[in-house]
């Protein structure tokens, strides 16, 4: 669940040290990493790259179209082209390509490889045996199925990562408002994001406080008891905070209307992007079908 970005480029000695840390320290570090990633994403989204300059509605809409297009591609060369294209888009959006590729393959890629591996065997995909014999052999048909799955997952995750890394949360909420998503939903999303960060900080501080108070690591049962007790505390705090926020809203004159977050404007650049994107998607599917036949 916690993004792996914080650990990219870490030395093996650092990794060994991390493994020796207590549960409280590891969790606190992971939460800190997640908050750092949020800030990192926000920094990237403020760059003046290709995707960041687009109207958020257009960016969200076209990226959704790209994700759907990937699900219609079935040949490995076309899926590989999409992965390369996401990296070029990342570069054009002033995102570091090694960081983008590292994150992509370290999370989605690795998971997809592990999940797809058994499908390369003769047990799931019988066919021409390349290595080994019987059900445990690797077949050419199986290899094709597994690589297609991995490429498709990585291509889809790359498109998702482009949204995450090039879109500020406030822009996303503005786009949702403009797309006529009910104001109450947008307001809930906005408030949720703020409260997530606040609760993450609370949870991180809890773990750091425990780490600083403890001499050893504690037994597993002690740690379990502490974790559920703190979860209950976070639940109580969450619901009390909800009451406080509502009281604050009323005190500030809340009358049931939610203000619109953004006034968005589409320009020539946005329309050009829509045209280019549509043409590329249609061409990709057409080429894919040509290769298939």
């Amino acid at each position, binding site marked *: 669940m916690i993004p792996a970005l914080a650990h990219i480029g870490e030395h093996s000695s650092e990794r060994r040290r991390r493994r020796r840390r207590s549960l409280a320290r590891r969790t606190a570090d992971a939460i800190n990493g997640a908050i750092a990633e949020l800030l990192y994403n926000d920094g990237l989204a403020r760059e003046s790259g290709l995707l960041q300059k687009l109207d958020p509605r257009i960016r969200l809409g076209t990226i959704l179209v790209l994700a759907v297009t990937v699900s219609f591609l079935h040949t490995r060369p076309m899926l590989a082209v999409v992965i390369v294209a996401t990296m070029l888009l990342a570069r054009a959006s002033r995102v570091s390509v090694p960081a983008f590729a590292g994150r992509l393959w370290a999370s989605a890629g690795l998971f997809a490889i592990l999940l797809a591996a058994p499908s390369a065997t003769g047990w799931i995909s019988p066919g021409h045996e390349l290595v080994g014999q019987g059900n445990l052999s690797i077949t050419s048909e199986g290899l094709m199925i597994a690589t297609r799955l991995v490429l498709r997952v990585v291509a889809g995750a790359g498109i998702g990562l482009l949204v995450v890394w090039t879109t500020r949360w406030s822009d996303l909420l503005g786009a949702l408002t403009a797309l006529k998503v009910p104001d109450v939903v947008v307001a809930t999303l906005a408030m949720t994001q703020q409260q997530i960060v606040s609760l993450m900080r609370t949870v991180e501080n809890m773990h750091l406080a425990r780490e600083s108070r403890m001499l050893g690591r504690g037994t597993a049962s002690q740690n379990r008891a502490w974790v*559920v007790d703190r979860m209950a505390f976070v639940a109580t705090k969450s619901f009390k905070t909800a*009451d406080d926020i509502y009281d604050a809203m009323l005190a500030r004159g809340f009358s049931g209307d939610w203000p619109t977050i953004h006034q968005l404007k589409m320009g020539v650049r946005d329309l050009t992007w829509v045209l280019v994107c549509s043409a590329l998607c249609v061409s990709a599917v057409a080429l894919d079908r040509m290769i298939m036949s």
Partner: protein
Amino acid sequence: MHIPDGYLGPQTYAVLDAAIIPIWAVAAVKVKKTLKAKQVPLMALGAAFSFVIMMFNVPVAGGSTGHAVGATLIAILLGPWAAVISVSIALVIQALLFGDGGITAIGANCINMAVIMPFVGYYIYRLIAGEGASTTRKVVASGIGSYISIVVAAVSAGIMFGIQPLIAHTASGTPLYAPYPLKVAVTAMFTEHVLYFGWVEAFVTMGVVAALAKQDSVLLDMKPASRSMKWVWTAFAAIVLLTPIGSLASGTAWGEWGVDQFQSELNMAVPAGLERLSSLWSAAIPDYAPGFIQNPLVGYLLAAIIGSALAIGLTWGIGRLLARKSDGPTDAPSTAA
């Protein structure tokens, strides 16, 4: 359980994305009716809590850790419809802010974790805990509810994966998306959640419910549910009636080979231990096919009815036992919602 992009074909994710929209709409109406004007901060904090609970690492056996989804817990605290919105928001934020779970698979993930889990978990909790139950009964009920809910959600995800080779393949039959057939996908998801993640979920939910009973027991008061429990039984009966669909899938699930299948399907020698222990216990209804029924579909259905009746009877018995134990003064008096 977060399904990324690429595992589900358009035929599946489009249907699930379309299906989740009316569910959200109904949930919004229900929540508005029951929680009134405080809904926005409460939903937001519920979603934030749902998100953050997944960040707590829970120590499990052998030094490993796991994390809970917490959907049943949220349903117990906010009610099932409010949980639909809160967990959905948490999942949307995970997908759009952290890249956890696919964009096209948002509908599938929400159906599994924000609809199936809260409803299954909450109604099992209600069924066992009842009104004004003792803390012990509530804790046990929350554990059973959360355990079963995550297993059911995992099976649902397994079905979503498993139908891919059936509905999306090339002319030669090569799967285009998730490649594992129903029996493999459902068995894999079922097994890992029955053996591992279900226990983590149950432990967390039970622990938090027990701690809340001490810290702030008002939060555990029964939350408004839309209908009586009758519809739970109706839905359950419908699921039992649909069980013969399971017999349509052919072959044996991976790892569930019997003595005869080792030779006929795997061309492997039967392990000595397996051969020795295979005659230790003879099932009353082997292969879900009662001997006195000729039609396999009717036999499968009858096996489902017998199995369900046994499971319900056992759960009811545990519930009665706990109720008897807690007769007298309850340790956490409940107030009306």
